[in-house]
């Protein structure tokens, strides 16, 4: 059955069940990185919580079919067959999409969208969402990041400051388990860390050169959600570096390994997979949201579920899709959209710049095991004494060193015994840095709903209209230049300066479109991720972001989520919601 409009959907009865049976204290839309946290926190506070997830259930360990396979056990040694790549060019560009992870990624072909301009939208439709395949980097945002919009006037001022979120960073870090050093750098404030994964020899060398030759630049162990010791019954990491398949040791944080099991343990969670949320139901009399309309992904039957409070965690673009689709006479342009900002100010991270080079020394040095993280170089541009004239804001680098496989050179015979000997030796050391540039919020980087194209569930297709603009492109030149100058100073040869020219989206850090702000006239959410106009709807995934900073964003979504649940519960206890 195709859903033609909301009225038709509302006319469908709730499949024989009384309203009471479909009523919960809270509903969480989406069971990924932030939704898992919303579920855990609500359930632990005693709320009967329905978690609706559009994809299938993925149970920790049980549903990681490739987790213990060796590369030779995979039919194509981890290569994606040609036909699948041709049919799915967007997801095929994702670094983590392989034969070992294919089942966790959305295929372009099955879930189309409209690219007004090129945008690589990488998605994971299952319980756990993209928390299964994430890169696990977890630097905190610093004081400057929450002040950035106010300072240069791009975007709206964040309604919160670092001190508002700091205790919530600690709160989520203690549960997640983050390895890292206390580096004392205000750009990435210290948190609650497990012992760090050590830098290898070349990483240490690069660190010492950078910190000596380039005042204000620091190279640190990238804090990450990998467990260096057993933590809350999970882990530790076994140094296989196969995280994105799902870890049978629970060696890294995912919703599947951590928050969802915690929510289940309370007995308060009802999980409903295969549930595409059509829209949020707004009651004009009560002036609040009363529930959600759900389309069963398999049968396409429709259901309504009711609750006192709704958390929207469907991932940035899908969250705003369903908010825009939630129309009523009070909100003809999408629920909570008095400002007109809903769908606008889509942001991403500029990942186009990359430098790497070879290092001649340290031929007698090696490592044991496969480290699932690397190094991080926090922001130094337009920070402290540094003032740039060509661009606003700044960028960070993430990177790492390793030895290549094979030590074949011009003098090696190209075939035979000697070739075999050399190709099995460790080759030269290599080190690379990938920039992560802050992207400014622009009104015309936006998503809208197609007026005529629908998906198989009758949902309007998303149109994504987003691009790098002048500030991002000016910054990109500096990312490549500054990266290369550090490698030169550290004695690298064959330095490659790469501009991938990749489209926005491939960073998988899409943010904004339902931004937080102080003023209901210019923003969708207040300082507690609560809709200005609908007090019992909270949005705590990437859609809420008012700026992007230059840190990987998931840790901040998680902290904002825990903080928002705490606030929501207090408000409910005061009968304000």
């Amino acid at each position, binding site marked *: 059955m195709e859903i033609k409009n909301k009225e038709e959907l509302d006319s469908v009865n709730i499949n024989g069940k009384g309203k009471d049976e479909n009523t919960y204290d809270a509903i969480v839309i989406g069971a990924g990185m932030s939704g898992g946290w919303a579920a855990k926190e609500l359930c632990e506070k005693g709320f009967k919580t329905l978690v609706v997830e559009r994809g299938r259930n993925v149970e920790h360990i049980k549903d990681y079919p490739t987790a213990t396979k060796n590369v030779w056990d995979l039919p194509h040694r981890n290569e994606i067959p040609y036909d699948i790549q041709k049919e799915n060019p967007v997801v095929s560009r994702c670094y983590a999409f392989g034969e070992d992870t294919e089942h966790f990624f959305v295929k372009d072909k099955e879930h189309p969208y409209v690219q007004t301009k090129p945008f690589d939208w990488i998605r994971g439709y299952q319980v756990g969402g993209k928390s299964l395949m994430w890169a696990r980097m977890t630097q905190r945002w610093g004081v400057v990041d929450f002040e950035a919009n106010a300072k240069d006037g791009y975007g709206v001022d964040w309604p919160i400051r670092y001190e508002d979120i700091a205790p919530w960073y600690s709160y989520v870090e203690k549960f997640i388990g983050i390895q890292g050093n206390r580096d004392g750098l205000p750009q990435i404030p210290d948190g609650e860390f497990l012992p760090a994964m050590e830098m290898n020899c070349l990483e240490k060398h690069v660190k010492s050169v950078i910190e000596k030759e380039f005042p204000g630049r620091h190279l640190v162990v990238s804090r990450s959600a990998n467990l260096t010791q057993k933590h809350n019954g999970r882990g530790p990491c076994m140094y296989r570096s196969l995280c994105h398949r799902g870890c049978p040791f629970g060696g890294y944080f995912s919703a599947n390994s951590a928050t969802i099991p915690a929510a289940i343990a309370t007995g308060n969670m009802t999980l409903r997979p295969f549930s595409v949320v059509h829209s949020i139901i707004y009651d004009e009399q009560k002036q609040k949201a009363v529930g959600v309309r759900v389309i069963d992904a398999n049968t396409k039957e429709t259901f309504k579920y009711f609750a006192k409070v709704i958390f929207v965690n469907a991932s940035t673009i899908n969250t705003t899709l369903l908010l825009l689709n939630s129309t009523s006479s009070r909100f003809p342009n999408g629920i909570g959209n008095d400002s007109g900002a809903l769908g606008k100010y889509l942001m991403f991270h500029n990942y186009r710049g990359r430098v790497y080079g070879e290092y001649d020394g340290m031929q007698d040095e090696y490592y044991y095991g*496969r480290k699932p993280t690397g190094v991080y170089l926090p922001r130094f541009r337009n920070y402290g004494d540094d003032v740039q004239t060509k661009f606003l804001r700044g960028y960070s680098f993430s990177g790492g060193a390793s*030895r290549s496989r094979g030590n074949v050179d011009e003098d090696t015979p*190209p075939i*035979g015994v000697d070739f075999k000997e050399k190709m099995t030796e460790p080759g030269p050391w290599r080190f690379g840095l990938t920039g992560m540039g802050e992207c400014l919020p622009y009104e015309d980087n936006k998503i809208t709903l197609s007026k005529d194209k629908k998906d198989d569930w009758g949902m309007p297709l998303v149109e994504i209209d987003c691009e790098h603009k002048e500030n991002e492109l000016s910054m990109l030149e500096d990312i490549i230049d500054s990266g290369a100058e550090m490698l030169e100073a550290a004695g690298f040869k064959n330095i490659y300066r790469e501009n991938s020219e990749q489209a926005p989206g491939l960073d998988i850090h899409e943010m904004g479109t339902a931004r937080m702000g102080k003023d209901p006239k210019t923003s969708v959410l207040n300082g507690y991720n609560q809709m200005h106009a609908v007090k019992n709807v909270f949005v705590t995934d990437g859609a809420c972001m008012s700026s992007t900073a230059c840190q990987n964003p998931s840790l901040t979504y998680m902290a904002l989520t825990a903080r928002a649940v705490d606030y929501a519960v207090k408000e409910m206890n005061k009968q304000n919601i």
Partner: protein
Amino acid sequence: MSGCAKKTTEDVTTTEFISTDQISLLNEIGEIIIPETPGSPGAKTANVGEFMKVMVRDCYSPEEQEVFKTGIEKFENDCQKATGKNFLDLSTDERYDFLLTLEKEANDSNDPKHYYKMVKQLTVWGFVSSEPGATQVFRHVDVPGRYDACIPLEEGGKAWV
């Protein structure tokens, strides 16, 4: 083809991407590129010929498949022309010498899609990612269990795969 019809030998050879004889030939070519050495398996043990069949058939573009398939046929002609014999009738030393001339030709041609380049690259890839290659020739530990960030590389130490 009818699903119920009994397959004849001819059907099998025409429907397979490459023949079993060609897979054997690729294994013999691979074995010259990466030979068995004392206590250390070579490309034939890793069955790189079968690997090439599967990978080229499923993961390469139609154009690349064509280069590969016609390349195998060209290989035997080139071998006949250069040595007067089939590759499999050559001694190990003669095979080595012939592959060296092919290596030179492929490098001189500046054609990134020269079939020999494809076969050599697939040989290395198939060997490194095979169980005998990874576990008996390279350094492979399923579950390392720890990370030592800086350790000396012992004499003759192998690369991690």
